[in-house]
């Protein structure tokens, strides 16, 4: 497994006896324990706990670590740090922190040479630790309205060209720095000066928190921009630690970089694509970020939508996708303000779980739109062979419901994609193994081959053709279960009867038929594959909702639900 993320201040420890990857999210902290089982390195257990905060504000990393470690130790059945049985491992040495709790940075990129500014901006936009870049020449950035009112970037990158900054540019630069820093705080400045050029801006920057990088920004990668990227990564680490005050109490990592969670997931995605299905799409719906990553062989494209998600970022997600796009996924008419209040509630209380079916459906509507938005924002990609759901899709709902959510979103975002295989990363293995790869790629590869997420054996197709087509074809295949074809047919007919009369169901047993062939013959098929006797009716119920939600009004859905008897009358009344 390859590594692309630099890790500072940590020597590769291998895995012995344990390595605990803690992925500190703004909503949940995911802990994954690696260790040797019978002499073989394995992923032993994974647990997640809500990220504790200090006064509801900053993630308390120490508390998060201890809670997650306690939970995972109980699950794995191993004595651990500070336990009565004695320490089996030193938590401080074993801990590998992954930081997704700190939001990516907001950057102002200013310079004189517009060519260099454009070049640097286009490359930095890809960095997962950067939320947004306001780039331009100093003169461009100064006029009122060019930067948002009260805008406070996390870092200013100042690019000096081959010639020293002209004096005439100094005052505008000073104005720009004063504006973004105002009198509230010092904004770190990354001052990029070419080799051999005496900086003219140094005088005014002398009073700022300045980090000077000597580089040739127009040189080909990895020269030139590499130095800037490394410095920005360090800046991001400081930024993370600054926001996460508990980190100061973790003596093993007072200055170490938090590895970017998105970066870790991407390492795994690339490895998985290269060693497995060929084309892979990773959908990570977090509490305050949405990461979509497409990997095909060595190629990797991704998009991180930060500040948006199903927790703290829910209000931002609502603002971005709009009320109408959310409503279309609901089999009932939401009350006025219901969706916006839900967004506000989730933003204020990110770890709260839906108690009623109605709340769960609203939450899933947000998840569908998060996926749709992420895929739409991603550059055009070829249809994937495997879609991996992570974050909310792996932990917030069951795997079947997650598959339905993914299929729905794909059908809107990429209607031309016919069929995809879906799995959910419930063990947070993509991030955890990516983190392990950052310190020991070979070891991570070994663990990956044994403990990678298995397909949840559900194959769902984003239906081809128009959404309003009334016919729904169902093809099913199962192995190892005891269900007879006739029983299956009977259940399908029962559900068929509950559907609108224009809707038809065709059962096509796929036993012994190659799935690829079935896909070719029936491109508009929703195919369900169960390898271990999964409860089919429930699966079909979910599938039915996929089809109906977008094309039928609430009345017909309610009728269908009622006829199927899947929900109680009280539940229906609550819808």
């Amino acid at each position, binding site marked *: 497994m390859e590594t692309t993320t630099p890790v500072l201040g940590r020597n590769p420890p291998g895995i012995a006896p344990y390595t605990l990857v803690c992925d500190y999210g703004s909503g949940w902290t995911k802990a994954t324990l690696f260790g040797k089982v019978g002499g073989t390195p394995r992923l032993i257990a994974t647990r997640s706990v809500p990220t504790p905060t*200090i006064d509801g504000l900053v993630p308390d990393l120490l508390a998060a670590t201890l809670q997650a470690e306690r939970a995972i130790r109980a699950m794995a059945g191993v004595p651990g740090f500070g336990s009565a049985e004695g320490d089996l491992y030193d938590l401080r040495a074993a801990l590998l922190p992954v930081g997704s709790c700190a939001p990516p940075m907001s950057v102002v990129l200013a310079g004189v040479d517009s060519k260099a500014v454009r070049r640097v901006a286009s490359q930095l936009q890809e960095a997962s630790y950067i939320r947004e870049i306001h780039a331009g020449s100093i003169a461009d950035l100064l006029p009122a309205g060019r930067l948002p009112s009260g805008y406070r970037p996390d870092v200013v990158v100042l690019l000096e060209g081959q010639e020293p900054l*002209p004096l005439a540019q100094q005052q505008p630069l000073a*104005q720009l720095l004063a504006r973004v820093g105002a009198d509230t705080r010092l904004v770190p400045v990354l001052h990029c000066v070419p080799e051999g050029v005496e900086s003219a801006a140094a005088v005014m920057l002398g009073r700022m928190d300045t980090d000077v990088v000597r580089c040739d920004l127009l040189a080909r990668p990895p020269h030139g921009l590499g130095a800037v990227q490394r410095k920005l990564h360090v800046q991001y680490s400081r930024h993370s630690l600054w926001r996460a005050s508990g980190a100061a109490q973790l003596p093993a990592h007072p200055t170490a970089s938090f590895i970017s969670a998105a970066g870790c997931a991407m390492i795994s995605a690339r490895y998985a694509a290269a060693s497995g299905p060929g084309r892979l799409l990773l959908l990570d719906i977090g509490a305050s970020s949405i990461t979509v990553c497409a990997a095909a062989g060595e190629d990797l494209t991704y998009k991180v939508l930060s500040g948006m998600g199903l927790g703290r970022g829910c209000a931002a997600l609502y603002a971005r996708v709009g009320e109408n796009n959310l409503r279309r996924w609901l089999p009932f008419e939401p009350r006025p303000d219901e969706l*916006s209040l839900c967004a506000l509630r989730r933003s204020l209380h990110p770890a709260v779980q839906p*108690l*009623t079916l109605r709340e*769960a459906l609203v939450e899933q509507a947000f998840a569908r739109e998060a996926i749709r938005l992420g895929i739409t924002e991603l550059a055009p990609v070829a249809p994937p062979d495997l879609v991996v759901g992570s974050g909310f899709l792996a932990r917030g*709902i069951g795997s079947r419901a997650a598959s339905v959510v993914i299929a729905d979103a794909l059908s809107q975002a990429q209607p031309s994609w016919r069929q995809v295989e879906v799995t959910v990363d419930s063990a947070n293995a993509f991030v955890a193994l990516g983190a392990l790869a950052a310190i020991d790629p070979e070891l991570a590869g070994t663990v990956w081959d044994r403990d990678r997420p298995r397909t949840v054996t559900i194959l769902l197709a984003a239906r081809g053709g128009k959404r309003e087509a009334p016919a729904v074809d169902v093809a099913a295949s199962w192995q190892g279960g005891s269900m007879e074809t006739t029983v299956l047919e009977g259940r399908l007919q029962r559900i068929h009867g509950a559907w609108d009369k224009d809707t038809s169901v065709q059962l096509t047993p796929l036993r012994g038929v190659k799935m690829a062939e079935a896909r070719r013959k029936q491109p508009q098929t929703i195919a369900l594959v169960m390898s271990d006797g999964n409860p089919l009716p429930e699966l079909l119920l979910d599938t039915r909702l996929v089809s109906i939600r977008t094309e039928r009004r609430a009345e017909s859905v309610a009728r269908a639900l009622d006829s199927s008897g899947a929900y109680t009358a009280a539940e229906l009344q609550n819808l």
Partner: protein
Amino acid sequence: MSTLPYQLNCAVLTERRLHGRGQLRVGSGERVEPRTIVGTGSPPAEPLIINIAADLQETPAAAAQALTVKVGERVARGAVLARAKTAKSVREVRAPESGVLVAYDQTSGLATLLPSSSQVELRATVSGTVRDVVPGQSVTIETRGAYVAGVWGAGGDAYGVVRLATRSRSETVAFEQLDNHFTYSILVTGGTVTADTLARCEELEVRAVIAGGVAPAELGRYLGFEAGVQVLPEALLTLRSVRKDPGQALLIMLLGGFDATEIDEAAWQVLAACEGREGSITSSNWPEPPRLVVQLPTSEVVNAVPLQQAVLGAGATVLILGGPNAQTAATVVDGAVRRISLPSGVAAEAMQVRTDSGKQLDIPVHNLRVIQNP
């Protein structure tokens, strides 16, 4: 590890930090009020560019000869920077601000003057006693009294006398009832707050409003949104100030949330104990929760303890978040955690709680907000 949101008889620590270089003016053990200036800082100043050559009507090289101040020297405001004599007159360029002449460009004739930094005053914002001083950086002030944390707030900082505008925690104040009694106060109202009430508060120069909740539409109406125009949740959460008139500043602090309809009992008791006392509210930008700190007389604060951490266990009073019983207070029954399947289909770790009406419910532990420890 969150602190309990409502506490009496506690010692609250507030850190005030200088921005940039500066000097602190208070020492350990000193008493301060919200308006006390605890230090002055000097944020980086904005350099000034002066076109010496153009002002003297000389070439850049000739203007360089006319400089009366060397690069690196300090000049006072109004002091002569350059002087050129002609047959008929003497032309001078004076320093617009006090500062240091840091550069002169021979090719353009431009000089850079770095003004002396302006002083920014750092106020205590709370009443209390200085407990810790880090020279040149920060002071920590201890306030003994009451502490109330909200879930959302906007409007910066405010201080004033706490005044209850309603008799109960669920009663919504009618704006017609508000009079000059509430001027410059921190007004506490049960129930929710309306656009009309906020407008009246602004008129009366009320400094802050504490309420259980506010409907987004009402807040939007107060902020000037047209009827029917939806206020986006994100816009509410990131609201920096709640003021219609730029000359006025009104702070809002919600204890329940946007859909809450009342203040819970524990919070109301603490607020009632603060009636008539001067308090300070800090409400920075979301997601930082707002907080009210009130200093109480020594006779009322005996053996004040540091802010307590919330403990979710048997006997704890909790607030249920979300679901049909949202914002309902309940008591944790036995503190045992059980794995349950919710009606939503989600599997969760839950605790059994009993509401005031005697209803026993299994609620996920993440949906419980502890407001009183066992």
